[in-house]
Structure formats: structure tokens, C-alpha cells
């Protein structure tokens, strides 16, 4: 079937939801990071989809943004990983359920 914009958006939404689900329900910190990456990927997909189905010819703005977003996601993943390592070094656990010192 011809790929319409809606199909891409649905896929992107599904990808976002799965990522959100992962971020919200997994106990391991790395898995939460994976979820966040998936959400970012879903957003990238959205950008590219909207570019592809906008009236052509068009400067490749959507693609550019997606590439930037991937770069930022990478940086952010690095920072996230650094955070996890720092947490592990201190608390000796990656189970986010046990990181509740800020409660009150």
C-alpha cells in the first residue's frame, strides 16, 4: 500500500509509546536510557516524515534536524551513561526504585 503520512505518524507514535513504556516501567537505569533513545528516534521519524510529505522540492530541513537530533541524542546518551556510572559508583545499584533519597 502506498505509505501515507498517517502511517508514518502512527508508527512514530507507536515507537514513542513503546519508548515511554520502557522509560516508565523498567527498573534498570540503562533500560530507561534506551527508552529515552527510542522516544528521540520517534521524534526524528516525525520530522523526516513531515519533510517527505510536504510539497516538494524543498530544502532538506527535516533531514537536517533529524541529523542534529541524532548527534544531540548521542551526546545526551553519553551524559546519561556518565550519570549512571556515577550513581553506580555511589549507590552500588542501578535499580532506580532504590534511588529514592529525594523523597519527603
Amino acid at each position, binding site marked *: 500500500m502506498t505509505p501515507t503520512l498517517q502511517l508514518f505518524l502512527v508508527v512514530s507514535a507507536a515507537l514513542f509509546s513503546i519508548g*515511554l513504556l520502557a*522509560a*516508565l*516501567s523498567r527498573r534498570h537505569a540503562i533500560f*530507561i536510557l534506551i527508552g529515552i533513545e527510542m522516544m528521540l528516534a520517534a521524534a526524528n521519524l516525525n520530522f523526516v516524515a513531515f519533510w517527505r510529505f510536504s510539497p516538494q522540492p524543498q530544502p532538506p530541513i527535516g533531514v537536517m534536524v533529524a541529523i542534529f537530533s541524532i548527534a544531540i541524542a548521542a551526546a545526551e546518551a553519553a551524559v546519561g551513561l556518565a550519570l549512571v556510572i556515577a550513581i553506580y559508583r555511589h549507590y552500588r545499584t542501578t535499580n*532506580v*526504585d532504590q*534511588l*529514592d*533519597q*529525594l*523523597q*519527603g
Partner: protein
Amino acid sequence: MSWIVTNLWLIPAAPLAASLIILSLANSRRSIAGALAIIGQIAALALSILAFLPTLQAPGYRSVDNFTWFTFGEQTLRIGWMIDPLAAAMLLMITLVSLCIFIFSIGYMAGDKNFNRFFAYLSFFSAAMLGVVIANSLLLLFICWELVGLASYLLIGFWINRPNAAAAAKKAFVTTRIGDLGFFLGILWLYGGSGTLLFYDGGNGCLENAGLLALGVSATFVALLIFCGAVGKSGQFPLHVWLPDAMEGPTPVSALIHAATMVAAGVFLVARVYPLFSFGAIDGVTPSLIVVVSIGTITALMASLIALGQFDIKRILAYSTVSQLGLMMVSLGVGGVAAGMMHLIAHGFFKALLFLGAGSIIHGCHQEQDIRKMGGLRSLMPISFLTYAIGMMTLSGVPFFFSGGWTKEEILHATAHWHVSHIPHYLMLAGVVLTALYMTRQIIYIFFGNRRAASENAHESPPVMTLPLIVLAICSIALSVLLTPAWPWLHSYLTGEPAHFDIALLIQPMLFVSLALVGAGIGLGFVMYGKAGQEDRHRTAETDPLEHAQPALFHFLENKMWLDEIYDRTVVAWSRMAARISDWMDRHFWDGLVRGFAGLGQLFGIFSANFDERAINAGVDETMTGTRRLSRVMSAWHSGQIQTYLGIIAIGMLALLILYAWLA
């Protein structure tokens, strides 16, 4: 106008200043106190003589000095001083008699601890009395009148640790107060009726024609109300009960206040406001004057009867004073104003003489006052005897040499010509006999017969005491020169008519009548009481001859006709009952009301406290509990779980998206 007339206030000011200065002295400085008091009196005497001289210029001289005291709203209150023959004669008598009494007191009160206070009070009294005499405003007169009453209270109760003296002072003050109530009402009525309280004001005074006409018929009632004051102050019939008790004070006080001056103030008042009494007179008679005559007659007769039953020197003299004042009132009532005033002036001298003589005797007999315990003092105290005898003869009314005789004769003359009735005349004739009788009785008991208990160690008084006696005795005799009908100088001075010297006037029928009556009185006295003193030395006198003859009558007289007891059962009892009722009301009714209000306040307080406690505090507590619960809930939300936070962020973002989509 000579200087003194515009500065009449200096006359009372001198003794007043002396009094104030003495009050500031320490108790030890006696000689200064005595000297100051006497200097004050001498100053007053000198000024009085100065004030007297202008009044000789013309008959009916009157000089007035009015000034404004204060203004209220649109009205002003004016008071003033005045001098006329009446006032001048009174001034001279008062200052001269006071001076003699002051000198006497230096000797009499020498042993007393409160010497200074005595002279301060005496000077104060003197100032107030002089103020009464020269006042031109009824209000000013009333003020000085009340001050005189105050001084009398202070002096009667001078010996403050004697309960009898304190009771007597209280009785005097309250009784005269009753009279003063009538007086004050009279003043109010007079002010309302005539619009002024000045006596003489260039035609507008309340005693002058315009004022009297404005009063109209009410002049009689005003006069009667003012007469109430005179009744109280001069010890006339219903209100005489304080005078005999006032003898609890020192003898100079009795001499000055209750013989010569203060009690004379009542008679002076009647003479002063005489135009009110005589307004609208038909043949010289008005209803108010008839009342005056009646009360005077009753008083004169009643008092002389009671005097026959008394054994205390001073009481006999006190009742004698009451009787003589009654006589003066009778004289004023029948129209003999000049005669009454002349008797007043003469009475001042000889009554003071008699009281000072009594003081000398009491002093000589070492504070003994009962005549039954004295006797035969004639040889032991010759000067006192001689002066006392002179006083007694003057009082009895022996004519020719003694002033009292002439003045009494004038009064009898006036009563004989009263058109309403001759009863006062005959009763006053009886009074003359009685006066001679009781005085003779007193003299026999004290000076004749054998010496009894107190006369044993009696001695004559020192010269400081006997000199004033001699002076007063001389005055009593000398005054007769001014009083003889042959040359009625004082009479004409007071009435404003010229005087002629006419020796023929000496021989009058009334003269023989009075001579006969006085002789009868003295003779009867000697007959009845002549043997009264003939007892041996160690017993008090046997029963009084009258008591022997008429025991019931004597008992009645000795107990002052039971008047004090009647008053005690009636007026005093009623006032005590009223006091008890008031006390009950105050303690239970009014106090209960107050306590009720206090209870209401308390109730309100309890209500307020409870409201504060239960409602407000509880409300605040509830809020706090609620807040705490909420905070516990909210803090439970801060679980510290990252994923929870993330989830909420996601839901929130979703909600925003939906909202955005719905709004767009």
C-alpha cells in the same frame, strides 16, 4: 468717701491674717501667737473706730462699696461692703469685747497644750463675725455666717479628746444647719424675686423700694425663711437646744461666741433685713413680725424658767443668753429696732463680763463648775465678785447706772405700745422678774454663805484675767451714759433722728415699773435663796429651796423641760431610722444592682472565653490538623521514584496536548 469706707474689707482681714499666721507657728511659740492674735484685734478695733467716725457726720448715714465677684453667662454676681450706724455700732462692740476676751484667754488658756490653735480659731471667728456685720450682700453675709458656724464648731469641740465636747459641737452645727437651710431657701427666693442680693445698691438693692416692690407679697415668706436662720443661730425656741450644750467649750469661747457675738448675729440679721419684715406693714405690724414676737416671747420666758433649775454656772448664763435674745427678738418684732439693737450692744458687754467672771471663778475654784459646791467667794475673790455683781445688776436691769436697765426699759416701752396685743408686754415684765430672780440665786450660791467644797483653796485670778473684767464692767456702766432717755444718743444714732437732752424724760412711769419689778425680783431672790448657802463647810448645799417647795416643777425645769429628750425621741430617732433605711438600700439594693451588672460582665467574660477557647482556638487547631494531613499526603507524593515523576510528566504533557488540540 473716706479711705476706710472703700477698704472695709481690711477690718475682717486683720484677724484673718493673724489666724493664718498663727496656724503656721509651732506649738511652742505661744507668746508670738498670743501677741499676733491681740495685734490683729487691736488693728480691727482701730479700723472699726476709723469706720465709725464717718457715720457720725449725718443721721442715717450709709456708705456702700459694691463690686463684681464673677459673671456667669450674661448675669453678674455683685457683692459689697457697707457701713452704717447699725454696722458701726456692732463693729465697735465686737472688736472691743473680743479684745477683752482675747486678753483674758491668755491667762485662762495658759496651761493648755493647744494654746496656738485656740487663738488661731478665735481670730478666725473674729474675722468671720466682722464680715457678717459689714456685708452688703445677703450672699456674702451667708458665707461669713457659715464661717462663723464653722468657727463655733471648731471652738466648742476645742478639747477634741472629750466626747461630750465633740457631741456638743456636732449638735450645735447640725441644729444651726437646720436653721440655715431655711435661710438659704430664703436667699434663693429673694434672688429669684428681686433679682439682686445686694442690700443697698443706689436704689436697686433688695432692701430698697424697687426690690421690695418686685417681691410683693412674698416678702413675708422670704422674711420668715431668713428668720429661720436667725432662730438657729440665736438659739430661739425650737432650735435653742444647742446653746446650753455649747458650754462644753472653754469659757472664753462661751463668752465670745455664745454670749456676745455669734448669737447676736441672728438678731443683727433680723435688724439688717428689717425692711423685708416690715414691708406692707399696717400700723407697724406684719405677719412675719408677729411670728418673730411670738417666738421671742416663748423663748424668753421658757429660758428664764429653765435657768432657775440649773446648777452649772455656765448653763445658767447660757439660758440667760437665750432668754435675753428672745427679749431682743420681741423688741425687734414690736417695732423697737433701735431698742433691740441697743440691748444687743449692751448685752454683748455685760454678758461677756458675766461669762469671763464665771471663767475667773472656775479658774479660781480649780475647774469646778457646780454652784452647789461653791460659796462664800466674796472675800476670797473680791475683784471677780465686784465685777460679777456689776454684770448681774446690769443684766437684771437695775436702772440709772447700768446700761442694761435703760435698754430693758426701752424694750418694755416698745412692747407696751404694740397694737396687736399686750401679752408680750406682760410676759416680758414677768421675764424681768425671773431674770433678777435667777441671777440673784446664782450670786447667793456662789459668793455668799459659807464656803463649801470647792471654795476651800480658791484664789483670785491673775491680773491678766481680772483686768478685762474691770474694763468690761466700766464699759457696762459707761454705756449707760449713752443710753439714758434724758440724752438718747445711741437711740438717735441708730434711728437717724436727732437727739435732745431733756432731763424730764428721765422720769417716766415705765421707769418706776421696771424699778419695782427688778427690786421685787432681787428681793424675792434673797428671800427664797438667802439661806441657801448657810451650810457647814464639808457638805454641798442642801436641796435648792425651789426644789424643796415645788419638787415636780423644779424637776421639770432642771431637765430643761425635757425638750432635748423629746427631740431625741422624734427628730433624731427619725433621722436615725432614715439612716438605717438608706444603709439597707445602699448595701442591698444599690449594691445588688452593681453586683448584678458585675455578674453580667462576668457572664459575658465567660461566654467570651469559651468562644475564644472552643470556637476560635479549635478552629485554628482544626486548620492546623488539616494542613498537616494535607502535607503528609503531599509529601507522600514525593516518593523519590524517578519513574513516578516521569510518568506524571508524561500524563501532564498529554493533557496539555489534548487541551491545545481542543482549543485549536
